């Protein structure tokens, strides 16, 4: 997917040449690796570097929005063996920004990771890449070879006394490996089952050693932040919501794709950049932060700006920045059924509330969708979610519960109609036309 539109390109500066602009010489030509060189030649201190990142108020782009500079400062200084890990296990339904970042500008991720290694005192890093994007994994390995040949990776980088090496590790089909401790288990060559926290990765991470783990987009932002200064980056966005962010817009818009906009950009503007609603149809609902975020009805969403605080205030989460747009052709029961199936399928099974609860949620939503719903089912669904949220090792159980609760909350009458009339409120023919798969007029 080539870039279509942006305001203030930072992360996307390298995207305009499509697949022809990713290599080392292109990245260097647009100022790439200059920040790494500056840090090494001026012998910048780790504390100054982390302070600059803190100033930018960069918040983790993987979903939780945790301040990156603060996370880096948790790494114990004295530990002899530490790691930096990048989370490119992008599997949150609706999210496809890290794939394009890695495709069009892999060196920005590499430079960001090397700088992170310098800041936290790590000598080795891994980038964990979603198994489904194997072609991107191969490109990243090529980019690593380029960086190594140019002296940006390995021993005594650019003649300094700083050494850091970086390797790619691929997944092979497990959403749960996006959860940071599941991911670490997976790099260790095990099932990707999340660990109890605490201890957090900064104390007990990869191979039991202190580890900093960040999302791909988080690392990619680092060279830009250091280039313009933390404060200037913060000011691109709004207070407490620094910088720009990639939004993956999918669903019923004319131009699905990735859009980089300053934090605080009105949703209406983003929708317009994505070409507006497909076929000029009416907006019904938006999931603003990946499938795990609560759904918001059209009118609430149209009043939001795209930043952590505004979306949280509206009752949802900015999450990974995946904006799933649904128009009036969508049956909300069917939409929820597919999401509930996903969490049931991907639960790693360690915790009873998640393993059993996700199955219950899917089966009950399924029976409502298939005309076998019972009057008490909506209460039942809410009760099951009560028994899941906050009661498990990782947040997948909450991620399974949020869609269920929010779909019922905002579209209750549609669920009730289904249960009473044993069919969809939205005519199946209208639903079928919504996807655009079939040519208009064709059977």
């Amino acid at each position: 997917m080539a870039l279509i539109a942006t305001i203030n390109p930072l992360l996307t500066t390298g995207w305009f040449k499509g697949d022809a602009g990713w290599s080392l010489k292109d990245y260097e030509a647009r100022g790439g690796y200059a920040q790494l060189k500056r840090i090494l030649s001026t012998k910048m201190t780790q504390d100054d570097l982390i302070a600059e990142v803190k100033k930018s108020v960069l918040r983790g782009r993987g979903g939780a929005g945790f301040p990156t500079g603060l996370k880096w400062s948790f790494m114990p200084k004295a530990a002899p063996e530490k790691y930096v890990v990048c989370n490119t296990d992008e599997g949150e339904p609706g999210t496809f920004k890290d794939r394009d970042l890695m495709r069009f500008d892999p060196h920005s991720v590499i430079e960001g990771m090397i700088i992170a290694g310098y800041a936290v005192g790590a000598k080795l890093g891994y980038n964990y890449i979603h198994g489904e994007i194997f072609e991107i994994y191969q490109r990243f390995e090529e980019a690593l070879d380029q960086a190594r040949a140019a002296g940006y990776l390995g021993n005594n980088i650019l003649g300094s006394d700083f050494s850091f090496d970086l390797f790619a590790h691929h997944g092979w089909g497990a959403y749960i490996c996006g959860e940071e401790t599941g991911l670490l288990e997976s790099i260790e060559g095990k099932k990707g089952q999340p660990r109890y926290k605490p201890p957090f990765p900064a104390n007990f991470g990869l191979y039991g050693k202190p580890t900093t783990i960040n999302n791909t987009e988080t690392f990619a932002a680092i060279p830009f932040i250091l280039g313009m200064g933390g404060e200037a980056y913060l000011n691109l966005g709004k207070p407490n919501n620094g910088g720009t962010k990639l939004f993956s817009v999918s669903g019923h818009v004319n131009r699905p794709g990735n859009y980089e906009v300053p934090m605080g950009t009105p949703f209406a503007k983003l929708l317009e950049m994505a070409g507006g609603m497909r076929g000029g149809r009416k907006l019904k609902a938006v999931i603003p932060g990946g499938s795990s975020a609560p759904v918001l009805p059209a009118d609430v969403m149209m009043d939001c700006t795209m930043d952590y605080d505004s979306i949280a205030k509206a009752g949802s989460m900015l999450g990974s920045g995946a904006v799933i747009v649904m128009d009036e052709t969508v049956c909300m029961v069917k939409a929820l059924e597919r999401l509930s199936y996903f969490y049931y399928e991907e639960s790693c099974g360690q915790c009873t509330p998640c393993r059993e609860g996700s199955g219950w949620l899917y089966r009950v939503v399924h029976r409502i969708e298939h005309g076998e719903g019972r009057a008490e089912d909506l209460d039942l669904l809410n009760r099951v979610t009560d028994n899941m949220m906050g009661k498990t090792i990782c947040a997948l159980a909450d991620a399974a519960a949020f869609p269920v609760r929010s779909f019922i909350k905002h579209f209750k009458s549609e669920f009730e109609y289904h249960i009473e009339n044993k069919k969809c409120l939205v005519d199946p023919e209208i639903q079928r036309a919504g996807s655009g798969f079939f040519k208009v007029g064709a059977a």
Partner: protein
Amino acid sequence: MNNQYDMLSPEALRKIDREVAKYPADQKQSAVMAALVIAQDEKGWLPKETIAAVASYLGMAPIAAYEVASFYNMYDLQPVGKYKLTVCTNLPCALSGGVHAADYVKEKLGIDFNETTADGKFTLKEGECMGACGDAPVMLVNNKRMCSFMLPEQIDKLLAECE
């Protein structure tokens, strides 16, 4: 007697060695995911003996490698057709035709999810989000090749290309 690794070609072992070299010397097991993919590519799927051979090469218990092979969705523990097609039907894709694309393939090939055509050519799988929802409908061919914007014409073309 032949050694236990001759189930994997020297070429495959060389590729596995390259993976092992990415990790600290005492963490060979980290290479198991990549090694199983290399083995699966060579054998077409992962019989138990192949998994055991990979485990033994990496110095891990066979059960530990089997646990990995059975946890991750893209390892094939049963034989599959020459072309394994995985269609993403998750919600963001479904909004732009993911489910309809899967239905279309089912009808063209006369098989359902998790089935293989009688001639052994195609296996169809239902996939979860591949991180490419902007390109919906999307489809993976043999795990590694992603095909974007798979509307009827593109699907026809893809199926015709598969020899």
